[in-house]
């Protein structure tokens, strides 16, 4: 899964990973893992991230060809 979380974080006032983590009540390591593509967030967390970054889930995350296999 491709993620634009890092780009949106910088575009929305250069939020730090810790600040964004606190905004959605997760630990910083979870944001790190999502940005690295190691962890796919739940629908709830994806919606919360999108809301806090003033965007949509589709803008934040996109499926890649390999995800369909």
């Amino acid at each position: 899964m491709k993620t634009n979380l890092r780009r949106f974080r910088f575009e929305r006032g250069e939020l730090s990973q810790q600040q964004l983590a606190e905004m959605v009540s997760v630990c910083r390591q979870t944001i790190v893992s999502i940005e690295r593509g190691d962890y796919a967030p739940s629908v709830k967390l994806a919606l919360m991230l999108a809301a806090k970054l003033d965007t949509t889930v589709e803008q934040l995350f996109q499926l890649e060809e390999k995800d369909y296999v």
Partner: protein
Amino acid sequence: MFKTDPIFWGASAVFVLMLALFAGWHYQYWLALLIIPALLRPTMASLGAARKYVDERQMSLHYRSGNVGFAVTLLMCVFFLAKLELEENHDFEYFAAVIVVGVAAKALFHVVFSRNYREGATKIILVSGLMIALFSIMDARSVGGMLMSALPGLAVAGIGLLSIRYPRPVGILSILAAGLLILLMVTVGQRNSPSWWGLAVGVLLIGVPLVTAGVCLLLGDPPAAEEPGMEGK
């Protein structure tokens, strides 16, 4: 490095208490009980008691590592069970009890967490009945004896099948059956096999699943969410 929340302080208090108890009385089990602080957070979160102190990624890691840890623990039990049995040491039964209780607990919580109570309850009663029948025929010496020994277990399994059609009456029946079986084990069973721990495991293995199944059948499934456009149909 450590999250200093109420679970951290609770686990730390238990940790210090176990160390103090070990310092006072040099028994290894005080140290073995250090599993309590180690497993406090994931266990509480799994039971839904401390969700706000564990984020979803951590929970997912706990689930995955917990499953691997559970499999390793059971394999170690099988190894020591085999070792003791080959040495003709009957303490191997302790390991058999750990395996059965562990697997039964996992299956039971799986059913409860799925919230598919009715179907889950049927499965619990059916499997409990078959397990009772299986363990009963192990001690029988003839085919007739095997059939007779298997009857109570098969009756319980039959009750399980009936629960598909008559959930509430079977719910009450399974709670009564659990009471009766426990009473039989405590009276007749104790005369034949006086080991208190074997009895306790037996009561646990029969009583807990049947009572859980009975309660699940009486509760019924939670109402399903209505699909759009289904109002009034």
